[in-house]
């Protein structure tokens, strides 16, 4: 009979290997799924994972990797801080929307003024917007003990309605002939986040890299980072060590909200360009998978973000060339998270065969 024996220490080897094994398992099971949908599994896997990087049109897809990866990494870095401490912000999608709305609102208010300070103000606005939206579940949790999972998620639906209201009302392009959606910020030089559109470089990419470095230093070299890890691993010990849980909640939710807001701002003033009803495409939720796939470690998240961006782009190619449905890639991403969580068993437990004995 198979028994599980708890390891005294989580296995380092397995902790590093599980993401790779999970990706492989997802490819195999995903391949079977694509086969069931009537596509050649090998062609599908090649289209998703190989063509965007080395295929015929890779010159077009490679910049997309940065564009899709930056928001995922930026959001996932913020989420990982809270997840480490057992603080579950799953409303990043809402904070992303509000950050984008506040930032875009500032940019549109200055239109068509040409000044250097417009974009920095928008960046601050985006961060503050996301931060403020995350402060709602944070303050409610600190003050009333309300569950932050449910509140932050409910606020996603509220934010989506606000987005609809803004793109149809307040922020609508006055010269847009009545069509919904705002002016295009990517065409407004003082407000665009693009640095070089041809190579896919925008300020979000730069901020994502800075966030990775900051998170790494915070978690490994700073007292606050130690407190975050301590609270996650041993909440009682953390209390005795003098960690203030309320401050930690405010910091973790606030930081993840601000980063999600920034991601939204960079997206809306660059790749997306305008405030529109369908502006958000689920980065806030995919970032949860990215955070786990990256083992809640900043460098891991960077790699996981790149991989997840690859599946987004590969999924789009597979959609246009092979006729794979858009939802298939969503299933693929969900499967990845499943395999990862299941394989984590091997990190914390040893699987042993044991003859059943008489009690």
């Amino acid at each position: 009979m198979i028994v599980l024996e708890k390891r005294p220490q989580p296995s380092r080897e397995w902790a590093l290997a599980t993401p790779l094994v999970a990706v492989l398992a997802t490819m195999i099971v995903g391949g079977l799924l694509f086969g069931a949908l009537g596509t050649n599994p090998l062609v599908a896997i090649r289209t998703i994972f190989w063509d965007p990087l080395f295929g015929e049109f890779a010159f077009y897809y490679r910049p997309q990797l940065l564009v899709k990866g930056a928001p995922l990494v930026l959001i996932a870095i913020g989420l990982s801080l809270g997840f480490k401490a057992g603080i579950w912000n799953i409303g990043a999608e809402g904070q992303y929307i509000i950050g984008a709305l506040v930032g875009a609102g500032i940019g549109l208010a200055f239109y068509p003024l040409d000044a250097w300070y417009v974009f920095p103000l928008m960046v601050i606005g985006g961060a503050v917007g996301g931060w403020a939206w995350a402060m709602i579940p944070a303050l409610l949790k600190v003050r009333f003990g309300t569950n932050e999972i449910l509140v932050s998620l409910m606020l996603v639906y509220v934010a989506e309605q606000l987005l609809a209201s803004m793109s149809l009302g307040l922020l609508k392009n006055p010269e847009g002939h009545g069509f919904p959606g705002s002016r295009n910020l990517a065409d407004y030089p003082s407000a665009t986040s693009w640095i070089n559109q041809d190579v896919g470089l925008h300020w979000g990419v730069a901020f994502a890299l800075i966030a990775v470095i900051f998170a790494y230093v915070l978690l490994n070299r700073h007292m606050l980072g130690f407190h975050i890890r301590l609270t996650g691993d041993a909440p009682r010990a953390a209390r005795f060590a003098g960690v203030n849980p309320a401050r930690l909640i405010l910091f973790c939710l606030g930081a993840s909200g601000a980063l999600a807001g920034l991601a939204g701002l960079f997206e809306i003033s660059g790749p997306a360009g305008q405030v529109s009803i369908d502006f958000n495409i689920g980065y806030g939720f995919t970032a949860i998978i990215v955070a786990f796939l990256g083992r809640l470690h900043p460098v891991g998240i960077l790699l996981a973000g790149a991989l997840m961006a690859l599946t987004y782009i590969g999924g789009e190619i597979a959609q246009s060339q092979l006729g794979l449905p858009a939802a298939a890639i969503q299933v693929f991403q969900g499967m990845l998270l499943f395999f990862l969580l299941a394989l984590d068993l091997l990190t914390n437990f040893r699987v042993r065969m044991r003859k059943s004995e008489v009690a």
Partner: protein
Amino acid sequence: MDLSAINPVLLVASLMVAATPILLAAIGELVVEKAGVLNLGVEGMMITGAICGFAIAVETGSPWAGFIGAAAGGAALSLLFVLLTQLALANQVASGLGLTLFGLGFSALLGQSYVGVKPPATPKLEFLGLSDLSVIGPILFHHDLILYFGIVLVAAVWAALKYTRMGLILRAVGENHDAAHALGYKVVRIRILAILFGGACAGLGGAYVSLVRVPQWTEGMTAGIGWIALALVVFASWKPWRVLLGAYLFGGITVLQLNLQAAGVAIPVEYLAMSPYVVTILVLVILSADKSSAPASLGRIFHAAR
């Protein structure tokens, strides 16, 4: 604006319909949480139930086959949660989130060929003479079977938890799994059954959305009511009858805001549409001060060392 267009009798009758999916999902999740498991995948199981029920009802032409299929579909997805949390001992919060993300994608994949299809109608029960009464008739005696089933299920869960040995064991597992294990109860087996029950209930609730309430299939059509059901369990303080009360409160708000939209109230549509979510947060805040009634082992991983 014409508020007189809102008929209070029809409002109450339709709020019961609007509340039923939330009620079914929430009563299932209540049993799961009473067993000490936090399954955040309700939304994913609901949407899976919605498409399974829809597809089977369309293919067989029978809504009842659809509802059974929906319960089976929801339970099948919850089996994934079982594998992850009970056998692979994974974190329940992360697994539940994964279930929701996967369920949303999977249902969209299954439902591609069902967009715009009309499902077979679910018949309403007719009680001889009673259904034609003026006010009570439309409210109490003119609904489909599933709506009554939801109310009966609440009563059954309440009675089972309170008066039966099975309910006592379930609560023991949820309050202190180590003690229950020491007494010789099969903690994992009991939790697996509870999770499957929760999955079946959520699936049924999802099918009620796609077969009765809307009735149509669109991607992501459950629109967060699975999460509202989760919130409902918290503010019902894990008590079955309060779940019923809460579900009707939410059904009421949903129906009322739809009626106000139709009546052309001066509030923009988007702000009315966000009201159920805002109210959920407010009620959560008011009622979450009392955490004492939460099952003590909720969300904790059980691993029998020997």
